[in-house]
């Protein structure tokens, strides 16, 4: 199904370029970005991580690790996912979120697949990496829900992190299955009805590591743009946790506009190794999703 492949590649590549674009300005305020770059819209690397242009961060890397763990264990195994994340952590990645590090440290110490519910776990780390679960469970609502929560809880055990992960995941599923913008908005409204703090209208002017700020920023960018580029640029130039809002904005917009929506100049600069891993994962994840595997 060529349309599905186009949208799935769009979502995954959109996530990666959003991550790379946003990483240059993570932790900056919107004012600082405007003063330094005007409108930041080119992959230039740099940032507090001193990246090369086109380099991605933990947002994309954890997604790729999750995707490979899913492909290695078709019948789903949360312990293998946690093991794969831990191996990635021990390889000293360019960046690791504090809550992700804490959860993986817990797993490496006592083997548990989830910590107790924790007020400090309402961060972005679980939602930002969930796209491979979405792609591999397209025709199985129950598996989508169960596997999303299990991978999330390895590091984040908080109802807002759960709601953000499932909500943005569901919007992405609707778009990948051929839904248009109106269908995605209906899925958004269902998410906001269940969790009013996610309502992006009006946008309250804050982008941070808090999942509520992130979901609002991403939805605001998605609703007020007519292209993948515009959506990602709008999210990223808000500053704050810009690589994560960029990644999630890229995922949603990619699922809507497809791979052709990704600006060529970003595609050319994106780390070719990352692009190759995405191109190889997408068909295999979709094939798993198509078979309606048992949870």
């Amino acid at each position, binding site marked *: 199904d060529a349309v599905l492949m186009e949208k799935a590649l769009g979502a995954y590549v959109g996530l990666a370029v959003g991550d790379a674009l946003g990483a240059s300005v993570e932790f900056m305020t919107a004012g600082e970005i405007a003063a330094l770059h005007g409108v930041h819209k080119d992959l230039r690397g740099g940032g507090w991580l001193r990246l090369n242009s086109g380099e991605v961060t933990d947002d994309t890397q954890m997604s790729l690790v999750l995707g490979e763990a899913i492909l290695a264990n078709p019948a789903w195994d949360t312990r293998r996912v946690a093991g794969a994340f*831990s191996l990635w952590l021990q390889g000293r990645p360019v960046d*690791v979120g*504090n809550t992700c590090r*804490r959860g993986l440290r817990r797993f490496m110490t006592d083997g548990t697949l989830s910590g107790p519910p924790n007020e*400090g776990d309402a961060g972005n780390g679980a939602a930002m990496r969930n796209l491979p679960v979405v792609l591999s469970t397209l025709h199985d609502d129950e598996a989508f829900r169960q596997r999303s929560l299990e991978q999330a809880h390895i590091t984040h055990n908080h109802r807002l992190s759960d709601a953000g992960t499932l909500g943005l995941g569901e919007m992405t599923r609707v778009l990948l299955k051929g839904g248009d913008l109106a269908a995605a908005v209906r899925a958004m409204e269902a998410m906001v009805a269940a969790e009013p703090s996610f309502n992006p209208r009006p946008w309250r002017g804050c982008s941070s590591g808090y999942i509520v700020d992130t979901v609002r920023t991403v939805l605001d960018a998605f609703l007020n743009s007519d292209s993948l580029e515009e959506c990602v640029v709008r999210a990223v130039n808000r500053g704050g946790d810009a690589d994560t809002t960029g990644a999630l904005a890229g995922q949603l917009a990619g699922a809507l506009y497809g791979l052709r929506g990704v600006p060529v100049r970003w595609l050319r600069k994106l780390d070719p190794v990352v692009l190759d891993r995405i191109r190889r994962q997408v068909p295999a994840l979709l094939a798993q999703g198509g078979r309606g595997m048992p949870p």
Partner: protein
Amino acid sequence: MKLITAIIKPFKLEEVKEALSEIGIEGMTVTEVKGFGRQKGHTEIYRGSEYTVDFLPKVKLEIAIADDIVSKVIETIIKAAKTGKIGDGKIFVTPLDEVIRIRTDERGDSAI
């Protein structure tokens, strides 16, 4: 939450950091100190002449950690820092009433 203070031989710093990172610990604060103990001082050459100083350079690591990984961290530091020769150092465990991440105001285990 506890504060682990480890005083180790300077050449062991990388090895200890490596070992801690294997169990997911990256955050720490390090200070150059002088150690006095059973291991006596050393001889230095300064402007051509030899003289002894009575201390030995050591490195002090301070690591705030959650209660449930205290013994794991202690074990990891001992394994990486031990040479078996005098002067390997000490580990102190002190209680922490509170830890705060200045950037985000997070407190408690979420701040480490």
